[in-house]
């Protein structure tokens, strides 16, 4: 993606130099007509909540599987006044999140932030931030496989027909089977949902812990799958229901432990292995949420 010689060498301890906007690229890398095409697809997606809209995806300078769908969605909705936050596994500092943020800094020069409250667009891989979202914010999810029925039916032609006819019985077979074998539903992430009472959707590999955040959210949720060339959307204040049975209702994880850094009991916790005796600790997956709580506890202003 970037030539190493475009960056001044840094020592191990000084922070990296900020990325400079590269005027050789159109704002957001994609040309305007491609962005328009994408926005038209997104409008269609918003008009039919949960429905996968095909779009003419382009190759991006990051590989397929690294978030090209999310990047194309963000590129097509990004404006010069936007404030962009990018997270992966809940953290702003994972290599993939850093990479994407640097990409947009280079091709858009847009302001970036780690603070969820300040962001207008939040591109995320595998988590929804703990801080509640508000009206006017847009979540962009990176999606590897958009099709919830893909495990059941490899053929795209057939799954499109199943969606058209709302033939979702096969997915319930999977859930039934889990209960028969294990007494509970065994799906823990990328948990299938029904959007607006009609289309079955994959919320991307977020843990099921995050599914309730999709339901009736004030924010707009956009989903981009670059390799499969599909976008879909959940408009603000839309019902999103996780699949379950009447007598086996949907349940989320809860930890006995609290976050070792900030004491939170209501956030998704990552397990850290501390030594070779297997000592474990739990810390918030959402690093910004955790940092904010720590600062607040110390009485300091962020």
């Amino acid at each position: 993606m970037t030539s190493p010689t475009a960056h001044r060498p840094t020592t191990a301890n000084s922070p990296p130099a900020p990325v400079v906007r590269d005027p050789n690229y159109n704002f957001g890398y994609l040309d305007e007509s491609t962005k328009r095409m994408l926005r038209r697809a997104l409008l269609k997606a918003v008009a039919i909540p949960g429905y996968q809209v095909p779009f003419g995806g382009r190759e991006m300078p990051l590989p397929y599987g690294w978030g090209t769908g999310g990047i194309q969605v963000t590129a097509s909705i990004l404006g010069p006044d936007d404030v962009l936050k990018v997270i992966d596994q809940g953290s702003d500092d994972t290599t993939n999140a850093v990479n994407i943020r640097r990409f947009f800094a280079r091709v858009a020069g847009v302001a970036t932030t780690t603070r969820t409250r300040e962001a207008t667009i939040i591109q995320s891989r595998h988590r929804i931030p703990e801080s509640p979202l508000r009206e006017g914010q847009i979540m962009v999810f990176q999606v590897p496989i958009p099709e919830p029925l893909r495990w059941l039916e490899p053929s795209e032609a057939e799954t499109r027909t199943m969606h058209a006819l709302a033939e979702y019985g096969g997915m319930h077979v999977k859930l039934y089977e889990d209960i028969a074998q294990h007494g509970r539903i065994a799906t823990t992430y990328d948990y299938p949902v029904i959007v607006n009472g009609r289309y079955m959707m994959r919320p991307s590999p977020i843990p099921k812990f995050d599914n309730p955040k999709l339901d009736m959210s004030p924010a707009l949720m956009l989903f981009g799958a670059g390799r499969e060339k599909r976008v879909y959307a959940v408009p603000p204040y839309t019902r999103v229901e996780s699949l379950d049975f009447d007598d086996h209702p949907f349940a989320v994880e809860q930890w006995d432990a609290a976050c070792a850094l900030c004491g939170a009991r209501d956030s998704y916790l990552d397990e850290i292995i501390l030594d070779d005796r297997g000592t474990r600790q739990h810390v918030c997956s959402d690093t910004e949420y955790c940092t904010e709580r720590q600062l607040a506890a110390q009485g300091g202003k962020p």
Partner: protein
Amino acid sequence: MYVAVKGGEQAILNSYRLLDEYRRGDPTLPELSVAQIASQMPLAVARVMAEGALYDPQLAALAVKQAAGDLIEAAFLLRAYRTTLPRFGATLPIDTSAMHLQRRISATFKDVPGGQVLGPTYDYTQRLLDFSLLAEGREPASPPSSGQGLDPHMPRITDLLRDEALLEDDASAAGDPEPVDLTREPLELPAARSARLQNLARADEGFLLSMGYSTQRGYGNTHPFVAEIRYGTVEVEMHIEELGFAVTVGCLEVTECQMVNQFAGRPGQAPCFTRGYGLVFGYGERKAMSMALVDRAMRVGELGEPADAPANDQEFVLYHSDNVEASGFVQHLKLPHYVDFQSNLDLLRRLRAGTCPLKAGVVPPANASGDGHAVASADDSAASPTKEVLAS
């Protein structure tokens, strides 16, 4: 005390520097020039242009250099670059019957008008490592004297067969519809032939080779013959509105392979040969031939033939043929997946805490997403730190 890891950005920058060093190799050796790569590794450059879907030998050579010889990575570089290029318009279709030929062979007739022209080919070399190439400075062999030159009259074999009505007609469909452009629109199934051919032209050579090979080994046999292979240069013309006629805007090297296959005929249609077609940028015979085999294999539906082999399955072939897509998705598994792994770990611990054996014949559970992240065996038998609560 656990301290959250920072420094992702610095790690990335360091990796750039290490990569630069790796690519340069031994600094006491002269650096490879892009011109050398373009000139002395034309087959690598051809493959990168074909799979990068962009005809520019110099850029392709640059990509090969930047990718340190990884041709799939180089194709990716060209594809990403292609995204930034504006499109002026469409050319007229190239006319391979007017090709300035370097090579032209046919397996279907002993002799053909214009003759068999072997050209520069590895076909008849003996695959013995030539250690004299270890030293530099060997003078290349002088090319054979051209004598009379090539016969100007080199009709395409397939045109001859078609004129005798032995080969299916290749006229455009009624109304001469625009070909599908997969770089602008997503693939729709069932795919039009133009979309399939475009997909195959950009496809990974190894994948097509294996798929084509499978058709020869009984997975959907179509009894192919090479009617003709042509390699050479064609002119590229564009119709200019303001001028009212077409002008030549450049030329391309291409390799074309036309295969003919037998066809039993159908009610109302006399038996005739059917076509499998392959066309690639640059000199790429193996790819062009594989493409022709797979093209024909995917036509079984429209020809009323049985369609039960992998190469007959349009979805299977077209969705897995692109190595830039495949490489990205396979390699994305290196990215952090610990949040999802965490939730699987917890479930497994809970299941093991209340262990019940799997019932007879049942496949062990996977995530509903079916992405292969099945619940794995773990050594840890500690009670799970999590429980589940109803979502409020």
